């Protein structure tokens, strides 16, 4: 076991904050329009697909925590270096950093696209990306505690959105949900697979784990957070299926935002305009923590200070947002990220878990042999 991370207790966070971290990481830009993508495969049983995807997150998170527990106080980067050796380990670390980069980019670019489509058709991309990046940099330089604080407040301040989706229920029909389980298993699984882009984010656990004060509670709060996320997604899916009709949902790009369009209060109408800008607070933790995860990995590969890293990282992201301009390009990136994430987030942790167990057995056998000799 090499490279354990030593962290002073001041930098550590309590396990219950993990709930907010994971929940806020999972909910981001995907929630704007996941309904359509899942619906394409699973039709009106899409909510079952969402449920299945939620179930999968629980299984994967379980494996992740088991793997991390083997090492005590280490993150994915250290584990990979230990399991595969320096070269292969570092190569895999680089891939994971790249993944964080792409995820960060996708979140940022998708949000910019939503703003441009709903509120300011004429606003320039570079302006939005600079302002958002500056906010993220400001949070990042504050350290992990500030970033966790952002994710805490993003969950708390967004709580009021959940009861608001009751409004559209008035216009929903229960019949849209029936007959249940009409879709076959393969299309349900396909639908669950399409949830990847939306439901990822909990892999931050791999990196944040050593920073948790009471590690024995980590799994409890992780699963609670996953449960909460699944609840949010399933309820939103149910509301969407009953609110929209079949053809309607397939044509609505951001079904969640369109849901808000119907909501009006005596003092404000067209609620989606508020919701779209408010989403900035919801994507902030995604951006901050992906950035942070990438930084943690980079420090394993090269020596770099946090501030230097964040400026270089932001510069690349900024150039990226300028290059990707059209909706089609954005969708391609989302799809590619979804595919990449499926292997990195869902398949790989299970594999890694088996590898660590194997390695542990081998080393203990070796030690025994050494002792016998």
């Amino acid at each position: 076991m090499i490279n354990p991370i030593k962290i002073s207790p001041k930098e550590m966070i309590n396990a219950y904050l993990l709930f907010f971290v994971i929940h806020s990481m999972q909910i981001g830009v995907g929630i704007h329009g996941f309904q359509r993508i899942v619906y394409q495969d699973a039709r009106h049983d899409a909510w079952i697909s969402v449920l299945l995807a939620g179930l999968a997150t629980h299984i994967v998170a379980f494996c992740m925590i088991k793997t991390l527990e083997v090492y005590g106080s280490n993150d994915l980067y250290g584990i990979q270096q230990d399991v595969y050796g320096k070269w292969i380990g570092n190569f895999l670390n680089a891939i994971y950093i790249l993944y964080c980069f792409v995820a960060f980019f996708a979140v940022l670019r998708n949000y910019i696209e939503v703003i441009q489509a709903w509120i300011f058709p004429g606003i320039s991309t570079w302006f939005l990306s600079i302002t958002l990046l500056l906010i993220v940099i400001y949070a990042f330089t504050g350290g992990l505690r500030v970033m966790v604080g952002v994710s805490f407040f993003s969950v708390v301040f967004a709580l009021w959105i959940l009861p608001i989706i009751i409004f559209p229920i008035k216009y929903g029909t229960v019949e849209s949900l029936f007959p249940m389980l009409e879709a076959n298993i393969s299309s349900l699984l396909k639908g669950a697979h399409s949830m990847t882009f939306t439901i990822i984010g909990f892999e931050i656990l791999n990196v944040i784990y050593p920073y948790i004060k009471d590690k024995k509670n980590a799994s409890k709060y992780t699963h609670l957070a996953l449960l909460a996320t699944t609840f949010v997604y399933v309820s939103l899916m149910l509301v969407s299926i009953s609110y929209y009709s079949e053809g309607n949902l397939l044509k609505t790009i951001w079904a969640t935002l369109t849901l808000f369009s119907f909501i009006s209060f005596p003092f404000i109408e067209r609620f989606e305009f508020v919701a779209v800008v408010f989403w900035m607070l919801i994507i902030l933790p995604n951006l901050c923590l992906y950035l942070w995860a990438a930084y943690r990995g980079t420090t394993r590969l090269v020596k770099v200070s946090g501030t230097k890293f964040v400026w270089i990282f932001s510069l690349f992201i900024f150039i990226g947002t300028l290059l990707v301009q059209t909706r089609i390009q954005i969708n391609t990136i989302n799809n590619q990220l979804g595919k990449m994430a499926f292997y990195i987030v869902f398949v790989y942790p299970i594999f890694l878990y088996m590898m660590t167990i194997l390695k542990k057995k081998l080393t203990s056998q070796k030690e025994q042999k050494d002792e016998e000799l």
Partner: protein
Amino acid sequence: MKFKLPFNKKNETPVEIGAPRKDIGMLNPLKNDFVQSIKDATHNPADLIIKDIPPNHLTLIYINNLVDDVTLNDHIISNLQDKPNDTPEVIKATLSIPEINTSTRLEMAIKSLVNGSVLIHLEGYSQVIMANIPKRESRNLSTPENESQVLGAQVGFNESLSTNISLIRRYIVSPDLCNEKFTVGRRTNITVALLYINGIADDQMINTLRQRITDLNIDALLDSAVLAEMIDDNSMSVFPQMLLTERPDRFCDGLLNGKLGIVVDGSSMAIVCPQTFIEFFQSREDQNLRWQLATFARLLRFTAILLSVFLTPIYVGALTFHYEVIPQAFLVPLSESRALVPFPPVIEALLLEFIIELLREAGARLPTKIGQTIGIVGGIVIGTAAVQAGITSNILLIFVALSALASFTTPSYIMGNVIRLIRFPIIILAGYWGFYGIMLAFCFILIHLLRQSSLGAPYMSPFYPPRLKSMADTIIRLPLSLTSKRPEVTRPSDQEKFNPEPVKPDKS
């Protein structure tokens, strides 16, 4: 990113406060030489009195405006006049003055002289007697004007350190009340007292604060507000991280919750720290009201603050970009009231905010009587005229007046000013990018607040890091039985304030 003030802490080599700039040395036993050395050291001021009492070869030296005339006449001059020629020890014993010392060092004598002592020099002795009889000029105690409240004590601090400490001691009658003295300011030598309650306050925090005060390398200190800004965790932030209060009860409440207090001589405001963001919006009066009323008052205050910060920006944002969100019922009145206005909403709002701030500033600068007139004249005449002239719309006038009014509900004057100040950048942002700009400002403020700390304690506590128990006394105030614990932000050594069990016997 941390910005550091040039005079702030650490990097520079600390210069000991009150250290002699040059060693003047010992006192001269000869009278003339002695007088001359004192004159040299004090640059022979006009109010330096040198008085000989001939029979005993005694010389009295004092600064006229610093000593108390009555005591000087009754207890010193009359006592010394017909006494035989004695040693300094005998004279020291004969004088009925509580604070009396002897020294042979010139530096000590000078320091004592400027503090309000009479130096008594005896021909032939190098020792000098220093009888401290300062004239304590201070205002009478009056009601705290900046932090008035309806229910509760109506006494405020004044500018005298000793009066202030006696007020505090009267609230907390306990030997555990610790009082440490520091002298701050190379030139002014102001006395600063650090107060805390032993057994509640956290030692680490006391050390930090002590360290910060002694590390100060500063020329002059005229008010506690300056001190607060300099020993804040982040002096560059617009948000104060320490509370300035002129209410002894609020100060003592802080001490009893495990906080540390600083009283500066010559300043009517005391510093309380660590202070969290939310505590700036709480008033001592909330404790004196029933919890339902207190909760209502607090919710009112927080709503007012949200309104104050975001109402005008939302108006600007909605009218400049997001006309879609305006409900139909408002549409006609809003657009009609703006029909004559030649400016875009952002300029209109800034102009009006500017006028309101002008009125406030003018009201604060002028004597109270005129100030009131300015408020009324400004409010009514300028407001009405501006609407009639078509410079602003009357709906915005209501919004701006409302948000100005709302900002004055903040119990802390400094925080109230901050609330009014941060509105301006948000209005500009809203004028350029509508709701996106407002949200950008909101996120920035949130992150900024999260980054702050007060004496090392998290500024956003108890919301972040979340402490459910301490939240009982924040935005709302739950009944006393649920708030028996001290807030965790002060890391108190003794957590329980009182036993939450009811003292009343059950009604049966």
